[in-house]
């Protein structure tokens, strides 16, 4: 894609996102704010047991309460099962394991029952009156016990799933390599999107039409799953994406949608369900805990020869997306470094812990941590600077990755590393840390660097196409109809900017519709960092089509050859006659009245590339060896973003990712008590970094604009989280000259390490 970046007027200039003014006024409408006449409110009863069978439910007292409409549970609702991860009709590789209300409860927080009532208070009060008789079953939250046979009967199709693949050519691995084995553990993490999950649903019985409003990442996925579950035709289910108060992957599983649908189908009234934070943490999804072993082989001069990765992922009660998750992780293995051979083996294992789901990066950040930790230990063993070690091995432009043999095109890993080395003052910091650490006993400092390669879209793992329709209004503005799902990170604004730039219009002359399954062209959803790269490209191409259509129609109106017309500055002009000049609105009116036509274009775009996208992060930390507290002194993130469509939003996203990844590295854990099966379910115990603790994060973008994305853009939202945890963990290990990788490296673990060291020194 070649274009002149210097001529851009809108793309590359920072804009507030499309609904920023509504949000500062407090009148952006989130699902929890929606009101309908006659609306009913659902309140949930979640399982207090990690594994149990419901013997009986007595809802009589709840039903007797004034204002209660109904009580739904496993004995009066559908026995059909669904997968929270269903995105497509006839989707291969998913397991339908859950009911709307399960009879066998497989985790604390599983859905037992729901009261539908006139007010939220009455609904919550009635929940306390439901009497449930449980038959407790043996439970475990230990993946190793499950692999040894515990929970064998919990799911008929089995409780674990294994995936193994080899990539590259083993025969090319050099002899006489240094073999290094590292072990990593990551605890359960919450997405902690500030908006708790919510859903409104209304079934109009006379029309046999079900409408669902929710902050979700894929209206067609919700439609498909709901229609399949309740045996409805797809055109009878309409799903509308509402303003989303953050997702980070939390709102890509369908959990409240089936509950609200079930409730409105039962009552014929509009029903709203809003989760509390505890319900979000216990009954939606989390990032799975991991146990990972990495064995690397390096030549003595630091050339990576092979990686052997073994991962066990605790899926929690239901497999959900985990089978796809580990397959996806395997494709990420060769996207950072160039080397001859890799083997990946992933196991997704069900336990009675909280069900896991995709978190920002979809396994990429986890993989990055496992591999980068190994590289840091290798660097130490080979006495090579960690940054130098990476420079020796990162992909160069136009390398092919060995998972799918596709080109990484203009990957800029080396440039990211070199720019970061200079701007972060890597070598100087290393030297000053060495001096500091010699003089200080209590505080120890270290630097860490990490490289995280990521993806843009599904290609070639899954099919990756989308549809767009754009029409001119009579006033000369444009309406873009595309199934975009803004997670709150400004995708709609980015699309408006792309369309405005392409059509030559001011940004507020473009309107972009969000996900609505009744009107949007089909799309598979906003996942996998495909929104800008794939859907944004489709929008840009469709704008060109719209302009071509406008020219053709005007050629008809003017009885001129189309080649004699052009569009310049949002005007249709005759190339050789400056007096023949029509603004968009005039042209559209001419066409309307003369040809009886609307000027519109329709486009389907199939993505066939997945260029390399690299984040290189640098962290400088100070560890208090007495308290175990870690302070991030400095942080730099360098990304080869291709082209930042809306630069300040891109920077804000990277900075947000650094704070999130730092939390995952140091403070955040939804730790599950193995004796009770209960996970942390409150923000009191789940420490998200606040403004006081958050580090200052410098962000640098390398922009070459040389990709198939719109205006040369690559992905950033997920890519920005990928290297963070690895950079922080690397820096902590450098500070302490330790080799432990058990996230979060919270004060408890650091103090324990220090105590262990002291004991050894005493002996």
């Amino acid at each position, binding site marked *: 894609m070649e274009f002149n970046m210097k001529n851009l007027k809108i793309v590359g200039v920072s804009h507030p996102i499309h609904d920023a003014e509504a949000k500062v006024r*407090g009148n952006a409408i989130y699902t929890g704010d929606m009101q309908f006449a006659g609306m009913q409110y659902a309140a949930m009863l979640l399982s207090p047991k990690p594994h149990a069978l419901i013997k009986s439910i007595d809802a009589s007292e709840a039903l007797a309460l004034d204002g209660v409409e109904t009580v739904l549970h496993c004995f009066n609702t559908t026995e059909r099962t669904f997968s929270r991860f269903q995105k497509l009709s006839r989707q291969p590789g998913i397991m339908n394991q859950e009911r709307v209300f399960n009879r066998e409860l497989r985790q604390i927080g599983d859905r037992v029952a729901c009261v539908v009532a006139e007010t939220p208070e009455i609904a919550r009060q009635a929940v306390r009156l439901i009497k449930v008789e449980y038959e407790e079953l043996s439970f475990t939250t230990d993946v190793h016990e499950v692999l040894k046979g515990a929970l064998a009967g919990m799911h008929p199709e089995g409780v674990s799933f294994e995936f193994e693949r080899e990539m590259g050519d083993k025969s090319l691995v050099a002899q006489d390599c240094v073999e290094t084995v590292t072990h990593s553990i990551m605890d359960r993490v919450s997405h902690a999107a500030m908006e708790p999950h919510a859903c409104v649903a209304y079934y109009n019985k006379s029309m046999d039409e079900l409408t669902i409003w929710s902050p979700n990442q894929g209206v067609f996925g919700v439609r498909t799953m709901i229609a399949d579950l309740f045996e409805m035709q797809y055109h009878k289910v309409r799903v509308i994406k509402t303003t989303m108060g953050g997702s980070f992957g939390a709102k890509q599983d369908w959990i409240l949608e089936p509950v609200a649908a079930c409730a409105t189908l039962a009552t014929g009234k509009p029903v709203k369900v809003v989760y509390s934070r505890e319900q979000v943490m216990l009954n939606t999804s989390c990032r799975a805990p991991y146990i990972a072993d990495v064995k690397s082989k390096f030549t003595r001069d630091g050339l990576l020869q092979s990686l052997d990765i073994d991962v066990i992922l605790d899926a929690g009660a239901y497999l959900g997306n985990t089978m796809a998750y580990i397959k996806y992780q395997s494709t990420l293995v060769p996207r950072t470094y160039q080397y001859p051979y890799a083997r990946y083996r992933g196991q997704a294992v069900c336990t009675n812990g909280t069900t896991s789901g995709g978190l920002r990066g979809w396994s990429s950040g986890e993989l990055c941590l496992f591999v980068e930790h190994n590289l840091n230990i290798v660097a130490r063993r080979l006495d090579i600077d960690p940054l130098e070690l990476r420079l020796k091995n990162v992909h160069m432009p136009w390398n092919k990755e060995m998972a799918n043999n596709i080109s990484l095109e203009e990957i800029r890993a080396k440039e990211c590393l070199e720019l970061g080395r200079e701007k972060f003052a890597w070598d100087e910091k290393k030297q000053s840390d060495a001096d500091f650490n010699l003089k200080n006993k209590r505080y120890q400092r270290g630097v860490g660097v990490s490289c995280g390669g990521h993806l843009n879209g599904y290609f070639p793992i899954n099919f990756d196409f989308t549809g767009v329709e754009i029409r001119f209004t009579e006033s000369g503005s444009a309406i873009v109809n595309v199934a975009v799902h803004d997670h*709150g990170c400004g995708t709609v604004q980015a699309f408006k900017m792309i369309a405005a730039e392409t059509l030559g219009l001011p940004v507020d002359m473009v309107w972009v519709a969000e996900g609505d399954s009744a009107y949007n062209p089909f799309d598979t959803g906003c996942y996998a960092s495909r929104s800008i790269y794939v859907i944004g490209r489709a929008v840009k191409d469709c704008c060109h089509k719209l302009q071509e259509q406008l020219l053709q129609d005007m050629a008809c109106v003017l009885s001129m050859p189309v080649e004699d017309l052009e569009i310049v500055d949002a005007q249709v002009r005759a190339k050789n006659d400056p007096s023949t000049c029509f603004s968009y609105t005039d042209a559209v009116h001419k066409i309307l009245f003369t040809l009886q036509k609307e000027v519109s274009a329709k486009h389907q775009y199939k993505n066939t590339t997945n260029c390399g996208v690299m984040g290189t992060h640098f962290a400088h930390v100070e560890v208090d060896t007495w308290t175990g507290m870690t302070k991030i002194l400095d942080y730099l993130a360098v990304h080869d973003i291709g082209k930042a469509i809306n630069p300040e939003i891109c920077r804000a996203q990277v900075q947000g990712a650094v704070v999130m990844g730092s939390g995952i590295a140091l403070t955040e854990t939804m730790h599950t008590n193995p004796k009770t099966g209960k996970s942390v379910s409150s923000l009191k115990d789940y420490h998200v970094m606040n403004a006081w603790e958050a580090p200052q994060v410098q962000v640098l973008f390398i922009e070459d604009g040389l990709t198939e994305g719109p205006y040369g853009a690559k992905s950033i939202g997920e890519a920005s989280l990928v290297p963070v945890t690895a950079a922080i963990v690397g820096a902590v290990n450098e500070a302490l000259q330790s080799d432990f990788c058990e996230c979060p490296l919270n004060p408890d673990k650091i103090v324990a390490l220090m105590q262990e060291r002291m004991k050894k020194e005493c002996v």
Partner: protein
Amino acid sequence: MRLEFIVNDKKRVLEVAADKRLIDILREDLGLMGTKEGCGEGECGACTILLDGKAVHSCLLVAAQMPGRQVTTIEGLEKNGRLDPLQSAFVEEVAIQCGYCTPGMILSAKALLLENPAPTETEIRRALAGNICRCSGYTQIIRAVERAAREGGADI
């Protein structure tokens, strides 16, 4: 109980349960949906409002504590159709993403500027420590508060 209090400069008289949370009174009885619930336990700050000029969590207050008090919600900041300097600065500085923390964040900043019209970055960070933003790294938010303090003048 009969609750008489001032909300966004208007006297309000309501019949509510004494233990009804202020956030529910604002949202359900008064239709002020700008106040958001993120955790219901005073940890996330999304429900922050001004109570007699101080930033507090509306999820931790109940009706019985409210008679005679003055409450300002996000809807009360705009004066005569003009956004509060903080609201404009949040837009201009691109300090808005998902927006769920925004009303609470702005009101915590408002309480700070009412007390300290020229805060340092450290003071801003401390004042916003009770408000979690999961989207950003707080950089644009802090910049917005600095800008409002700098340019807001008498409007703060």
